[in-house]
């Protein structure tokens, strides 16, 4: 018998509110339908869920487990095995420094050290005010432009340490803090 989560994901009409009370789940439902509820598409569904929520909370994992009728251990296992899935919310902005071989040769470490000094967070950490996360990635395959840094969704190549620090600062300044919004 299909569980209530699966039934809801399959049948609910588009104008009905989502039973969880959070409309973002309807985007996971869409991914589930695209995957035709096949259990082997768990990774695809988790990618979609992380895209929507920014990270994979317990609630999201349980929802996916029920919808795909998979053991919770299996969903948790997959979510924690792969590097691209995160169980913690990231900051509002993120900077991901590529640490592939070409970027290593071209000084990615110095960029990470400079950002660490500037913002007080190391790779995989988020500042206390939740505004900024520093992460690393292993090669995005554009090695000719090394060293590479991904600031939010912008990929920037041939960065010097100073430029990287400046670009991150500009990103954090670009958006007014909530107090300044009229």
């Amino acid at each position, binding site marked *: 018998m299909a569980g209530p989560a699966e039934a809801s994901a399959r049948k609910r009409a588009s104008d009905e509110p989502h039973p969880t009370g959070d409309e973002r789940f309807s985007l996971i439902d869409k991914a589930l339908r695209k995957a035709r509820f096949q*259990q*082997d*598409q*768990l*990774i*695809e569904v*988790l*990618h979609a869920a992380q895209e929507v929520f920014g990270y994979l909370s317990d609630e999201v994992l349980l929802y996916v487990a029920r919808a795909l009728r998979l053991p919770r251990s*299996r969903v948790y*296992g*997959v979510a924690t*095995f*792969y*590097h*691209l*899935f995160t169980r913690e919310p990231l900051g509002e902005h993120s900077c991901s420094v590529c*640490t*592939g*071989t*070409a970027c*290593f*040769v*071209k000084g990615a470490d110095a960029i990470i050290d400079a950002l660490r000094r500037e913002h007080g967070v190391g790779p995989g950490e988020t500042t206390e005010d939740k505004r900024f996360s520093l992460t690393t*990635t*292993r*090669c*995005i*395959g*554009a*090695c*000719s*432009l*090394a060293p*590479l840094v991904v600031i939010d969704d912008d*990929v*920037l*190549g041939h960065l010097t340490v100073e430029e990287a620090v400046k670009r991150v600062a500009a990103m954090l300044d670009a958006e007014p803090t909530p107090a300044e919004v009229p």
Partner: protein
Amino acid sequence: MAAPIDLDDVVKAEREARSRFVKRALVCTSTACVTAGALPVRDQISKTIHDAERPDICVVSTGCPGMCSRGPLVRVEERGDQTTIYTHVDEDGAGDIARDHLLTGKPVDNVPTMAPDLPFFTRQVRVVLETAGRIDPDRLEDYVGEGGYRALARVITEMAPEQVVEEILLSRLRGRGGAGYPTGRKWALLAEAEGDPKYLVANGDEGDPGAFMDRTIMDSDPHRVIEGMAIAAYATGATKGYAYVRAEYPLAIERMERAIRAAKRAKLLGRNVLGTTFSFDLEVRVGAGAFVCGEETALMASIEGRRGLPVLRPPYPTEKGLWGQPTMINNVETLANVPAILNHGHEWFANLGTETSSGTKVFALAGSLEDTGLIEVPMGITLRELVFDLAGGIANGREFKAAQTGGPSGGCIPARFLDTPVDYEHLRDLGSIMGSGGMVVMDDTVKMPEVARFYMEFCRDESCGKCAPCRVGTEKMYAFLDRICRGVGRARDLAHLESLCRTVRATSLCGLGQSAPNPVFSTLEHFRDEYLDLLVEEEEVNGATA
């Protein structure tokens, strides 16, 4: 149901369309050029041409022509084979190129150009990359117009599956993912395997940092991979295929998916391909950031939606693979070689390259080189030619120190072996491997023990944790390397490191652990002095820590 595509009609239509254009602007929209700002450049050119109402000028978004270090690249082709390649194009430059060169025929002199006859281009032999950089990867018709899908059409109507396997065997094509297993033999194994369904997987989990061959092939010419897969499926009896692409390559994923949809609409994939009894379904599966998933048993676990943990072989995937069924895993570049082999014959292919390594190899050149990017050369070319002729030598006037091939599973080749031919056997004899084709060149500022530490850190992070030799061993090897690099290592740390490297190599479950010590072995073999210089005497350490 739509009728199958008529390849001849498309070729004719493409040729006619092409003859109407007096000029074509080819803008590279592969990953590196997009990163460097190619999309606004293309839009600027398109808009200018569109506003000027000039249907005789066409703007094409192409895949990668190779010279990534000088991107964004815009190539202007005029009637009479006049070609200009603009480099480092920005939006202003794009406006100038469109207005002056394309509309009025006056070449632009304030945007840098490069000659189309640089050794970087002329020394290449492009088989896999034949149409990359010349066609729009998002248009099936572009690929068909260049002779695409012709091999598939001929194979499924005129050849028996055994003949196709025989052709690949005779071509002596070997796996381009690194290990170099004869592709024809693998195909024969799947063809002979009992079981229904049989699966075919294209391994596009190019996790080796510094390598971007497969990414480029998929984002620049996805239909070539699809055609290669369809031919492989016909030859082996596979009915379902997966293209497994790492999630770090969004553009490759998008273009592969779009190409598969177009091929299905044209009846080049799906049920009854081109109206024959041959059926082959294909879909893309996306990774989620795990280097170990390049290992074939781990990759299959990932396709099944599980943790990517490797298992012992045998049984090999061709006996027992995805969902327990016979499965064959070929690298993306291997499959992309297939259409050309069927078009030109096995003799042509076997005559390229060397005795043991036939054909060409795509290399991703990166690191301290004047020019970096993607090239395809015949097997057997020397490292010296690659580094100094094609890539223009070492950047910033520095000295060549080492070329790293094979990534975390490979090794570093020092200057005294620059004249070694690059093929599977010679690289192995030097303590490195061909690997998938990543080549990172290092200049004399790079410290080799730090390179070894870098790769060991990578392997430590990527170890899946299933077997103890790799899980614990990579951690301990990293610790020894870190001590040595920080200048607090002693002679016995080095001795322990070497002994541990031998143990991990001999006892790990899968290729990740077995090859993780390779960068240490190879840097120790060729650059041992650098390690010895970093070691401290026992007394010094005792004094410092007392």
